[in-house]
């Protein structure tokens, strides 16, 4: 475990010494819970319509596929006209695009970022690496199928998919959300133990709380 995560005694500015336990003090330990839908279908449909029209992407490029997201931000492809935009922090985003191969080291950061995002949240796997390992099928350091570790709503195949393919993917994502099928966050909460077991099988130096947000 890293030095900064160990329990230690800290002296405050007023001279009082107190014990700090970073893993417990800095993070919330409560496991995720399933969020029920609205009390009536028409309201839930309205929520889903609103959600589908404001897809905010976490600007976290995990692999080489992140390069395909840059043209989408610029006038040529201009994803902003569809209500899709990129946000700098997980707190402000609701769509996580895993862009390409995910090494176990990045997976750890991706899990933390995903858990810090607000529900309802969605995951898109971009490129063949997230589907079955792609060209990294025999690599010692990349995961081979993303849906074992995070609840994936949609895959966009290709190596790499063009920006147009991403736009088509976002349109499909919108349809999924409007149909009420973007239930990734609830799926994650329901199968929390299974996801954690899978994650811990590949991340050997687990130095964070099981759920942190």
């Amino acid at each position, binding site marked *: 475990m890293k030095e900064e995560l160990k329990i230690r005694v800290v002296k405050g500015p007023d001279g009082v010494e107190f014990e700090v336990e970073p893993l417990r003090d800095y993070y919330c330990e409560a496991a995720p819970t399933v969020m029920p839908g609205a009390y009536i279908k028409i309201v839930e449909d309205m929520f889903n319509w609103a959600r589908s029209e404001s897809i905010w992407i976490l600007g976290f490029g995990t692999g080489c596929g992140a390069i395909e997201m840059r043209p989408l931000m610029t006038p040529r492809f201009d994803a902003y006209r569809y209500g899709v935009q990129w946000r700098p922090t997980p707190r402000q985003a609701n769509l996580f695009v895993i862009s390409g191969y995910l090494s176990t*080291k990045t997976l750890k950061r991706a899990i933390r970022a995903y858990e810090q995002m607000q529900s309802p949240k969605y995951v898109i796997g971009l490129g063949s690496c997230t589907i*079955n*390992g792609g060209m990294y*099928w*025999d690599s*010692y350091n990349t*995961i*081979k199928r993303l849906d074992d570790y995070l609840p994936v709503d949609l895959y966009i195949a290709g190596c790499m998919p063009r920006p147009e393919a991403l736009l088509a993917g976002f349109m499909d994502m919108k349809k999924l959300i409007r149909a009420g099928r973007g239930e990734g966050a609830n799926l994650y909460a329901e199968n929390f133990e299974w996801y954690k077991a899978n994650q811990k*099988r590949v991340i050997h130096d687990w130095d964070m709380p099981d759920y942190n947000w």
Partner: protein
Amino acid sequence: MRELHTRLAKLFPLGELTEQRTNLAFVSVPQEHLRSLLLHLRDREGFTHLVLLTAVDWLEEGQFQLTYLLSNRGKACDLGVRVMIPRDGATMQSIHELWPTAATYQRELREMFGIAFPGSPRVEEDFILEGWRDIPPYRRDFDTLKFAVENYSQRPGRETHDPATHMKQQLYPGET
């Protein structure tokens, strides 16, 4: 380069000079003379820049080959110094006092090849891999496919095609 080699050969027991280009050559040196040769090259011959430090695993010979690539900016030429060290219990002296940047390369080599560099700063810390338990992955006896199959869940249905045969079937389906 020849001239430099002749000059150096008078001072150090150097191996043959391998000239890759007019401005790039490699020379081998025994392990115990490496440090004095590097110091000499840096301070007397103007090879002030350590471009890279890398290793090759000669599994069959039971040796690691370390290459210290130095650059002389004034003369725009590069010289690679090769050192062979035994593979079992591989240990090499650290050169972080000569070039502080070498410490980073040494951390990488320790992690990826399992070569020990006693005294190098932060060499024991994880560098790229986190929580690695197997033998170092750049060693040639490490089977990366076997490791991937054992450690990562695979999606069934993955097929591999030989590109030549596949394209032949695609383009000329009737022919065999």
